[in-house]
Structures are given as C-alpha cells and as structure tokens.
C-alpha cells in the first residue's frame, strides 16, 4: 500500500532520495548563508561582553567597514588578484599552452602538459612552500639572477602582490589549459583549412577564426575561474600571511584577521557577506553564460 502511494507521487520519492543531501546542505551550507546575512547586523564577538549578549547593531558593521582603510586595501588587493591571476594570467598562460601545443609531437605535448598539470594537482600549502623557497632571498630565482650578475631581490617583501598573483597563475593555469584544449578541439578542421586556402596567415587565423570561435567557452571559463579564485585563502596565507603589513591581504584574509585574530565575529561576518555577495553575482553570471553556451 505504502509502495503504491510512493509510486503515485514522484515528488515524494524524489524528496526521499534527496533527503540526506537536503539535510546536509541545509545544516552546513544554506544555514550558514542565512547566518551570514543575520550576524552581519550584530556585534557578536568571541570574547568580552558581546560574546554573551549579542545585540542587533543595524548597519554599524558596514559603516565601520567603509571607514576602515584596511577594508579598502583588501578590496583593492582582491580585485588586483582576481584580474591578474584569474581573468588574465591563467587564461593567457592556459590558452598559450593549449594553442601552441596543437599539432606538436605527442611526447613533447604530454611532457609539457604533465608539467603544467603538476602545478595544478599540488596542494596549495605545498605550492606556497615550494614558491616560498623559490622566491626567498637565497632561493632558486635569486641564484639564477645572480649568474646574470643581478643583485638578489626580496620578492615576497618588495613585490608581494605580484608574487602571489604569479604563484596562483602557476597553480591554476592547467585548468584553463584543459578547457582551451577542449574548446580548440571543437573547432572543425575544415574551417581552418578553408582559411588557409584563402591565404590567411597564422596571425589572421588566430584573430579572425580561432579566438571568435572559442569566445563563448572563454567567457564562461573566465567567470568560473574568477569565482574559484575569490575564495583563495591558504595559498596567500602561507606564502605572505597577507603582508608585509596588509600589502597582500585579500578579502578572505581580512575576514580571517577580523574574525579569528581580533575576535570580532560580527565584523568578520559582515566582511564575509561582501565576499558572499561577490560570489553570488559571479555565480549568477556563470549560470547565465553556461546556459547561453548550450
């Protein structure tokens, strides 16, 4: 009897199948998202009076945020980081590798592909560590520059943002490479052949045919990679700690500092709300582009 009613309602059955997923996501994902919005308007703290009696403070956290020079710095750094490593860096390197690899000898292709992929599968803490060594005062880079007669540079201290961006390109470029390889393989060979016969040189073919044909995939990929880069924490935290000072502090690091170092959970939550809103906008954009690509 029970079996029959189940069969009649696909919704009930679907709900039953989905219930473990729904429960897990309600507790650990949806719940915290709602909490983020609510707690942003409170003075909740880890220690002191506000830890016991949480009170509603309206827009105080946001007023404070917009007056906080560290917030402005971290927003600025976040944008630089996203544009430099996700929107431009990884895309250019990923595309360049995928494009140049086309039609090259198989062993050479696999070797280069494997090396780029190695940077991708390496866990972020190890990425931070090996690059800390590579960029340190007596690391590999300065040793090489020394052979060329150049003075050693304290890369992580003098160029923290550039270093962090560069390392993140190294860590993430493989994803773009795979995406662009797939997109380039989708271009029918006849199209390129026809252009060749019509006398287009390789530069013209790249600008007039290849790039326009992968435009859709590229835009979707750009949004997706930017979205993934928005939440990067461990890599920057282990490499520079957001420093020197706040020179390489992005929003996730600023949020961590306020919430867990200064124990200002309410303020920290307000910062996460900004991060979350950025994520929501990008995620909506991503779905839009993905849909229009089909």
């Amino acid at each position: 009897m029970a079996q029959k009613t189940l069969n009649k309602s696909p919704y009930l059955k679907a709900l039953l199948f989905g219930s473990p997923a729904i429960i897990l996501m309600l507790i650990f994902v949806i719940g915290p998202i709602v909490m983020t919005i609510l707690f942003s308007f409170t003075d909740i703290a880890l220690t002191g009076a506000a830890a016991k009696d949480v009170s509603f403070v309206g827009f105080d956290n946001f007023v404070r945020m917009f007056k906080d020079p560290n917030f402005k710095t971290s927003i600025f750094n976040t944008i630089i980081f996203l544009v430099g490593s996700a929107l431009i860096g990884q895309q250019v390197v990923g595309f360049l590798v995928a494009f140049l690899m086309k039609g090259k000898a198989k062993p050479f292709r696999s070797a280069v592909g494997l090396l780029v992929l190695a940077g991708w599968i390496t866990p972020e803490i190890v990425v931070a560590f090996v690059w800390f060594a590579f960029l340190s005062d007596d690391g590999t880079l300065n040793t090489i520059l020394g052979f060329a007669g150049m003075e050693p540079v304290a890369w992580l201290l003098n160029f923290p943002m550039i270093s962090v961006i560069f390392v993140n390109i190294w860590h993430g470029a493989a994803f773009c490479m795979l995406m662009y390889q797939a997109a380039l393989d989708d271009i029918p060979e006849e199209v390129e052949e026809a252009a060749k016969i019509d006398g287009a040189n390789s530069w013209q073919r790249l600008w007039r045919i290849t790039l326009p044909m992968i435009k859709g995939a590229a835009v979707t990929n750009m949004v997706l990679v930017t979205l993934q880069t928005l939440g990067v924490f461990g890599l920057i935290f282990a490499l520079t700690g957001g420093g020197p000072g706040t020179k390489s502090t992005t929003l996730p690091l600023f949020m961590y500092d306020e919430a867990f170092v200064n124990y200002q959970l309410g303020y920290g939550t307000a910062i996460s709300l900004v991060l979350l809103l950025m994520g929501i906008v990008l995620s909506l954009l991503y779905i839009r582009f993905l849909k229009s690509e089909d």
Partner: protein
Amino acid sequence: MRIKKQITVALPYIILSIIGIMFFMPLLWMIFASFDVNATLAIEFPKEFTFDHWTQLFTDPDILRAFAIGIFLSLGSSIVIVVVSALAAYPLSRFHLKHKDSIILSILFLSGLPMAAIMVPVYQLFVFFNLNDSLWATMLFMAASALPYGIWLMKNFIDSVPITLEESAWIDGASVLVGLRKVVAPLMKPGIFTVLIFTFTGTWGNFFVPFILIQSVDKLPASVTIFQFFGQHGMVFYGQLAAFSFVYTIPVIILYFVGQNYMSQGFGLGGATKG
C-alpha cells in the same frame, strides 16, 4: 627566408619549453631537497644523498597521525558525497519533475559560491552545537560543502546511462533502489570514480576548513600540520620539510594517474569542471 621559417617552426617549442621549465623548477627543488643532507633554499642536485628526511617522517608518530586524520577526512567525505549525491541526482536525472530545471540551476549556483565566505558562521555553528574540534562534524561539513558540485556531476553521469536498461530490471521486479545499485552504479563507475577523486583531492588539499574548525594539535590533518611545521621550524629543516611536502603530495599524484581516464570523461560530461 629559410631562417625566418625555421624560427617560426621553433618558436612554439621554445616558448613551451620555457613554460615547462618554469612549472617544473619549484617542484624539482622539493624533490632534490628531500634527499639532500645539506638542503638549501636554492635548487641543487644533492651532493650527499640521504633517505634520513624520509625515514624521520615515517617514524614520527605525530606526522603519521596527521596523515591518518587527513585520510579519514578525505575518504570519509568522498564516500558520503558519492552515496548522498547519487541518491539526490537520481530523481533529478530520471523523474519527470515540474521544476527540475530550476532545481538543477540552483544546485549549480550553490556549487559556485566560495565556501570561504561562510567559514565564520560555520565556526559559530560548530561552537553553538559543541561540534568544535570534532573530526566527524568537520568531515560532514567538508562533504556538505562539496555536495552541490557532486550532485551536478553525478546527474550528468546518470543522464548518460540509458534508462531502458533499468526498465528491464524493473519489469523483472527490481525496485528503484535495487535498479540504482545493480544497474546504474556499475555503468556509472567512471562517474563515481571522478566524483571520488575530485572530492578526495579537494579535501586532502583543503587547509582553511580544518585550520578553522579543529583546534587540538593532535587532531589536525596533514594539510595543517605541514603549515605548522613550516611556521615552527621556519625554513631550518629544509630537507625534512621538503620530504614532508613531497609525501603529502604523493596521494594526489597517484589518484590523478589512476583516475586520468575517468577524469577526462568527467571533463567532457561535466561541461564545467572545477579544479
């Protein structure tokens, strides 16, 4: 003219070689330093070769425990995700539901959100329910946060299994769950492996979540202990630190090679595969 042509032919090889070297050098340092008695920060082939850094690692109970905890978190959340997402994805793939498209889009939307943004409230949630420092709860959170993406991948894989096979099983009297387990699951092996490998790798490398949710030193997974090792000893024990990093990276490398074929299928099917 001939020289110019030779340059155009050689140029891609030169650029790609330089990129390849740039990608390999930092890792090569790690490999060399882990076997070098006098490891320094600069890349150098070991003059005096040693296995000491490696043996020290495998005889240190604290490090072995950190690896075991890492395996518990990663394997635990991968298994939870595979089972829970297969169950949730099944009706989304097979049933005729009115708002199916919007449900699927919502799941995709959730999968895109940066989980770092909810760590502060998640920490509060854990404190409130006294789950702070609990490895089980941390494992479940890691599973839940990767679940939207798991469901999305899984749905695409189930879509690729023809429904006629299941229908014949139903005619023979099998229930939907039996059909899922006996007919769909075996055909979905590539999908299941892809989801497993993605979540295992993601969790294994995750630093932020255990860093926030686990406080006891003896409960920390390898991703956090390696960071603390780095912080405490500074860069003094380069060799040992390099060996630690190397060993910590090995499971991911193995999984990558084992799952390469499955992964490329997942890449095609998922359409939007995350790193």
